[in-house]
């Protein structure tokens, strides 16, 4: 569903991502973890079409992002780490805006929008301007809007930032349910326990390169650690890279 082949991204002399190749299958919940500055956000931006790679190809559901960006983007729902929105729209207007932008039929929009807004506990504030929302509410609105067009792929950058415990539990369950229904999720996070709990597979990126992918056992094997959770494997893999 998501195919990255030989992705490189340079900012001047700095190589943010180097030779990243990865495939995420349909219905898979893929966790993407790494230290600060490892290249996670750059990768997410490349997958969602916000940034063009210096080299390499991105395919979403078999569609080349460089050649057919509009078709590819129609299949993605992006949830960025910081919920910057159009502050002068109300929550419901924003949902209608997204529906129009993604070509969701107008007749169906309201019902689905209401359902999602209820799910994300925003129903009582939908007619207020977004500028009056808290950070967590904006984050929930972004999530609701990203799911409005029922995307085949959901790309998430730090999903739990700003959410309250109830919100975190709801999002955790939702992601598992979506994956069960066949949606592909690519999730970048610093919360290792979340990645360990919900992800089918995890990729660890460090210094712009993918150092290991797989389930917990495979990561442990790659890190050559016998026990412990994801944290031990993660620290061992990124420490090794730091002092080869």
């Amino acid at each position, binding site marked *: 569903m998501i195919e990255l082949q030989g992705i490189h991204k340079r900012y001047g002399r700095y190589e943010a991502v180097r030779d990243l190749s990865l495939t995420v299958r349909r219905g898979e919940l893929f966790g993407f973890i790494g230290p600060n500055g490892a290249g996670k956000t750059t990768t997410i931006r490349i997958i969602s*079409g916000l940034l063009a790679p210096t080299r390499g190809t991105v395919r979403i559901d078999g569609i080349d992002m460089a050649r057919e960006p509009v078709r590819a983007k129609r299949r993605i729902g992006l949830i960025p780490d910081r919920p910057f929105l159009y502050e002068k*729209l109300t929550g419901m*207007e924003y949902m*209608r805006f997204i*529906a129009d932008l993604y*070509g969701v039929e107008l007749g169906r929009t309201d019902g689905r929008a209401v359902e999602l807004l209820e799910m994300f506990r925003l129903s009582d504030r939908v007619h207020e301007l977004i500028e009056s929302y808290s950070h967590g509410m904006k984050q929930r609105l972004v999530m609701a809007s990203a799911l409005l067009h029922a995307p085949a792929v959901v790309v998430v950058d730090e999903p739990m930032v700003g959410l309250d415990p109830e919100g975190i539990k709801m999002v955790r369950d939702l992601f598992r349910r979506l994956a069960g229904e066949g949606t592909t999720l690519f999730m970048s996070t610093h919360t290792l326990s979340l990645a360990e709990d919900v992800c089918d597979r995890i990729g660890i990126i460090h210094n712009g390169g993918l150092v290991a992918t797989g389930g917990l056992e495979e990561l442990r094997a790659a890190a050559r650690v016998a026990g412990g959770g994801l944290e031990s494997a993660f620290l061992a893999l990124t420490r090794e890279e730091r002092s080869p």
Partner: protein
Amino acid sequence: MRAVLTLLGPRWRAGRRGRSGPGARWRTLVFLVAGGAFWAGIFAVTFRVLTYFQSVEGLGDVLARKLLSMVLVTCLALLVFSAILTSLTKLYLSRDLFLVHSMPVDSGEVFASRWLESAFDSAWMVVIYLLPVFLSYGLIYRAQILFYLDIGLAIVPLCLLSAALSALAVMVLVFLLPANRIRSIFVFLGLAVLIILYVTFRLLRPERLVDPEAFNTVMIYLNAMQSPSNPWLPSTWVYDSLVAALSGRDGACLFNAGLCWSAAAFVFLLDLQVARWIYFPGFSKTQTTRSRLIRSRGSGWFGVLRFLPGPIRALVVKELTAFWRDETQWSQVFIILALIGIYLYNFSVLPLNKSPLPTVYLQNLLSFLNVALAGFVLTAVVGRFAFPSVSMEGDAFWIVRSAPVSINAFLWIKVAIYVLPLVVLSEVLIVASNLLLRVTPFMMALSSVTLFFLTPAVVALGVGLGAAYPDFSSENPAQSVTSMGGLIFMVASAALIGSVIVVEAGPVYSILLSEIHGRALTAVQWGWLIVSFTVAALLSVLGILLPIRLGRRRLEG
């Protein structure tokens, strides 16, 4: 004091890095050349006017002093207006205020650092463009060194005093009202003051300074010119100080400059004390109050624009709704309406019958030149609204970038949104001014058609160059027209309008002459006419296509 300097440090360092970034040298050069040309223009005009005044026997000095007094009053109004807006932003609305207020620094010192920034930002441009005016006075009156020293000695405290008075007013009002509402109210009040000032200035008819015949007797004229200024106005102290320096009265010069300094120091010290009492409580209040002047229960645009395809409707509705709900935008609309009124009023008072040229010829010539003038008004409006429209997306631009809409479509939609109202605006301007000029039907048709085709080109230039030089992180994107990209847009738009006018000028002149003399056009003239209008149309088409292509490439790159 040390804390004040520390708080000013990031601004100073960011400014230095801004000047040493990529393309900084080129940017600085362009700014210097454009700014220098404008500065030289002000100097040339002032020098020419003062030279003319000197030739009016017995009245020259009276006229020159009256002009100086008017310049200083206008300058004071501009300084206060500008300081109100900048101090409101610097003291209450800047993004870094959370960080600053979390530091172990006294409120008075936070205020002082912010006030210094605000005083500088609100005054530097006014001061720079006042200098050529004063320089002209110095040269014409062969002033001593004291006059040149007094320029700094009197103008600096005027700026500080304006900033201190504005900050005091802002602090008190924010303490009494929520800040978001304050900004809207101040923009309205400020613009109202500006418009009233301009209209008053217009009704004073400064052109009468050079037309004593307009008065019944010399005595009435002299009385009108010599009426004393208000002694409570700080601009009067600056005026008295400068005039004393010009006439070699050193004591009076220093006394009046001293008045300015002492008043500035007193108000600033008062500000510091007031800041310790109410600045932080006011800031704290702004963080908990979110309000708007007008509350809306929902946008009806979705229903009205149901016929449009989804992505187009989405962007159009978003643009219209955000514009309608941003009160600072309406105030800009009001000022544009006021300027249109003044623009048309100026045409109605043109003394065409006093000209040595034949009236019919002059009317049509003015009508043709009016295409350029209306084009420049259009450029200013596009610079204020269409140019910043891409930057206005701000941090939310990720929504468009990640959406299934191409950047090309996004830019064309922006152009389409602004073209319709601006075509109406430019046509109202040109048709109304042509009616006031009573031009021939040919000139009416020509100027209307020319502007009809120029408007989309100027709008596309604005949107395209705004996309090529975006500033998504700006706290006030509406001001992006004062950036490098804005300058390029202004120059490109003026060049486009100028080129079209030049290309059309030849054939229009021959048509006008043939109409006046009752002769038919020759075959060569017809050919010239067709070629000229084709080139003008091509220029407009290129003006539409090229900037959008550039903007798309820059945004996608």
